[in-house]
């Protein structure tokens, strides 16, 4: 932290923390990041973490197998609550992915230098989150082997999927998102894969990284095409940041169920997605920089900026909650009013208050610079916000479905062991993939960091 006191009376000029600590060269940046993949031995911490998460993945597979054997009756869902954990978890996971795309695409187009050291693992987080998210809509159908019915293909049934249904839009939104994210991530990795290939310690690594590098030689032609492709993909990915969660919100907003049928849903879902996504990036970045000593690359500037994004999107989300309430009463629709009261006083009210605490009240601490610069506090807060965003989806899905129009259609929802085991299993899958990622691929974009080195050495590192 390099705050210099301005002379009394002068306009206050704050010197921001650098996005890259000074003193780094091309070689030191490359060495430091590549070493995590190529030379660092597997520590006990990594092995223990991997073992734990791997067993959680086995729990996931077990739960899925049991689900396929027995059907969705093993979950707590029943009419009228046909959507339970599966949809809550789907929306939660897919939302988390959004921060990665925002960082890699929108911040790239806006020329935000601070994205450089966090974009790679944020994109990986996006991919893994989409993978976890994708499991749920598939399995909640009860017959996942029929999932291809959702794709439009010339079938012998002579009919097409119902294109007016948001559930079909979902299929397109999520599969496009997954594909573009994967391409974006992979294209961005190419120069780094070539670096790893050239520094590989054995034949096996050479072959793997060599094949993945697709013959990258670093020629001017390669760089030219690489940059065009990257820019194009950034342009393609940018609308996805907004569209994917908008479509997910349509799953609810297009239905006439009280509490779902509202126009605020698309913007407030997108804001919530970015909110939870940045929380997850922080959850991952803070241990990552600590364990692998990457504090020089992921500096306080990054953490501070991400905290500010969380604060901003958190306020949008808070506004969304407020408008939901306001519109319920302003519309005078008795079902909407009743639902709003059910959130405050119904059987699931404690979830709602927990949500307000996690998502609206706690993040207000981020107004204080002291909190934004306290790594431990940020880490805890990122976990709190992730919990809050999960609760938000639980409140939306469960309270509306348990309190439908007529009392005879009311019900209660109680998740079962298998609901939890599947959810915890996907958490395990996510973290396991992150574990594999940090040791298998450069978690920070080496080539972009080199650019940053060049940039910082020319301009002293104090620019925006």
């Amino acid at each position, binding site marked *: 932290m390099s705050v210099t006191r301005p002379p009394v009376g002068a306009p206050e000029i704050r010197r921001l923390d650098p996005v890259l600590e000074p003193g780094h060269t091309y070689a030191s940046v490359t060495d430091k990041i590549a070493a995590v993949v190529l030379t660092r031995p597997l520590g006990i911490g990594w092995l223990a973490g991997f073992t734990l998460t791997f067993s959680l993945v086995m729990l996931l597979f077990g739960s899925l197998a049991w689900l396929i054997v027995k059907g969705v009756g093993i979950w707590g869902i029943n009419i009228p609550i046909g959507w339970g954990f599966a949809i809550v978890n789907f929306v939660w996971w897919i939302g988390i992915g959004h921060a990665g795309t925002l960082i890699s695409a929108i911040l790239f187009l806006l020329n935000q230098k601070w994205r450089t050291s966090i974009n790679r693992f944020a994109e990986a987080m996006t991919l893994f989150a989409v993978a976890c998210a994708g499991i749920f809509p598939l399995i909640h159908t009860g017959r996942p082997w029929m999932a291809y019915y959702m794709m439009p293909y*010339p079938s*012998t049934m*002579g*009919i097409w999927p119902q294109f007016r249904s948001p559930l079909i839009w979902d299929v397109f939104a999520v599969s496009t998102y997954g594909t573009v994210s994967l391409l974006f991530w992979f294209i961005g990795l190419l120069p780094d894969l070539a670096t790893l290939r050239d520094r590989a310690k054995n034949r096996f690594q050479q072959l793997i990284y060599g094949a993945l590098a697709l013959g990258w030689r670093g020629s001017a032609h390669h760089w030219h095409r690489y940059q065009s492709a990257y820019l194009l993909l950034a342009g393609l990915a940018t609308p996805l940041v907004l569209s994917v969660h908008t479509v997910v919100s349509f799953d609810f907003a297009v239905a006439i169920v009280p509490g779902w049928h509202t126009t605020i849903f698309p913007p407030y879902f997108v804001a919530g997605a970015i909110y939870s996504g940045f929380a997850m990036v922080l959850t991952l970045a803070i241990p990552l920089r600590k364990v692998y000593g990457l504090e020089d690359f992921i500096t306080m500037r990054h953490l501070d900026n991400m905290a500010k994004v969380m604060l901003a999107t958190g306020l949008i989300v808070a506004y969304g909650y407020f408008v939901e309430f306001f519109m319920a009463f302003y519309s005078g629709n008795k079902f909407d009013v009743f639902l709003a009261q059910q959130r405050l006083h119904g059987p699931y009210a404690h979830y709602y208050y927990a949500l307000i605490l996690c998502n609206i009240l706690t993040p207000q601490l981020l107004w204080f610079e002291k909190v934004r610069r306290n790594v431990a506090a940020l880490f805890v807060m990122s976990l709190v916000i992730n919990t809050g965003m999960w609760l938000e989806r639980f409140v939306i899905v469960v309270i509306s479905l348990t309190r439908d129009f007529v009392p005879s259609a009311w019900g209660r929802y109680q998740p079962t062991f298998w609901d939890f085991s599947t959810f915890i299993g996907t958490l395990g899958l996510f973290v396991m993939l992150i574990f594999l990622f940090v040791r298998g691929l450069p978690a920070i974009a080496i080539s972009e960091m080199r650019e940053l080195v060049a940039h910082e050495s020319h301009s002293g590192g104090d620019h925006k």
Partner: protein
Amino acid sequence: MAQIFHRSANFLARFSLFGTVVLGGLALTGVLVVARSPYITNERVSRNQPIQFSHKHHVGDEGIDCRYCHTSVESSAYAGIPPTKTCMNCHSVLFNNVGYLEPLRESYRTDQSIQWVKVHRLADYVYFNHSIHINKGIGCSSCHGSINQMPLVFQASPLTMSWCLDCHRNPQANLRPKDQIFNMDWKAPADQEEAGKQLAAEYKLRTTVELTSCSTCHR
């Protein structure tokens, strides 16, 4: 530094791009073709029966009406498989000692039904009713083909859902006058388009929306 890969790797890389698109496309096309082939639909596959009963002989040569054996086709969902006694109406006298009819006589003696093999199998989740089709102007041969020329009955139509829907979306093309329903050789006349419209009005056919609604067939 020695090259990691042989020069041929360049070709492999380019070919894999091409191959993914072309081979993937071919594989998908293949699946779609197989789904329509007799291997899946059983179209035009003859089945062995306990007695090699020839519809060609009984319908084509002898001119026996469908309803002589399939008695409930006009009034019930199920057209009906005749009891052995119906066969014995004639075969107690005709060909009453030929070897290949022994299973028939045995069935008559022991009062055990002949286990005919079902040829037209619809999925369990399809509600199909013969009588409504017969009474609304759809003739037997529209779906079953020229039964009067089949020594052993086979499925003349694919029985896929798109095949059902072809007609449910445009029934006029197949509507016949009442007296032509059981005519195995009926061909649509030149003025079928006009006649079909008139017949549709006469039979009070439901609208296409109703005829293609999910619950019309999946109840």
